[in-house]
């Protein structure tokens, strides 16, 4: 799988998006903290975090005795640059051309 595939796969699950949103609110959380916010076994949350880590959407860092999970926004930015920008740019360009056309004929 390419990096993009891993990101899309990771985002294609409501639990994983929920975990990302929790980290967005407050970053650098332990598994125990994340687990307390969700109706799921510790093992289930770990599995989801692993998928997020594989896609580099979450980076785990050891601080003292704790393993903290951080949201890494860069892959989403790159997906945005690569996929979203391309299509919205096209649409904006079409609208700009339409505007020029209409204003010239007005």
């Amino acid at each position, binding site marked *: 799988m390419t990096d993009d595939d891993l990101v899309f796969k990771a985002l294609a699950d409501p639990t994983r998006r929920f975990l990302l949103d929790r980290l967005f609110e407050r970053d650098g959380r332990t598994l125990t903290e994340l687990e307390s916010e969700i109706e799921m076994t510790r093992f289930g949350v770990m599995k989801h975090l692993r998928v997020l880590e594989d896609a580099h959407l979450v980076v785990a860092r050891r601080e003292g005795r704790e393993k903290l999970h951080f949201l890494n926004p860069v892959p989403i*930015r790159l997906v945005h640059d690569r996929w979203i920008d391309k299509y919205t740019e096209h649409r904006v360009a079409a609208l700009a051309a339409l505007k020029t056309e209409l204003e010239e004929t007005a």
Partner: protein
Amino acid sequence: MTTMTAQATQVYQLFIKATPEAIWDAITKPEFTIRYYHGARIENTPERHLGLGPNGEVWGDSPTLEYDPPRRLVHGWQSLYNPEFADEPSSRVTWEIEPQEGGYCLLTVTHDQLDGSPKTAESVSGTGWMMVLSGLKTLLETGDVLDPDRA
């Protein structure tokens, strides 16, 4: 983005198809940083991290804390680029470069010790670091400048 408070520790990670040496040069030499880093000329020496704006104004001037080319660079951060929060306490930026398979490196940037610097934290979060890092990736992988208006 409405109620979010910027975080005291921020972690950014991305793959770049380039050698560790090329990445090291791109983050430590002003002739490279001017092309992707909001137009700043940044020089990292074993002693200092010095960032200058387009007109020579000082945007950053902090001690280098670790200097281990081409793997690890740690330097202080003071937001001299904005008078509103130039007097916030110094924070810390760590750059880690780890070679991967296929000619890629994993670059991890950690900006921490931001607890007493909420305005700086806000200013570098969101698109702040991401513009810099996606610009760095584009420069190294294609030789292009991502945002020519800023360079």
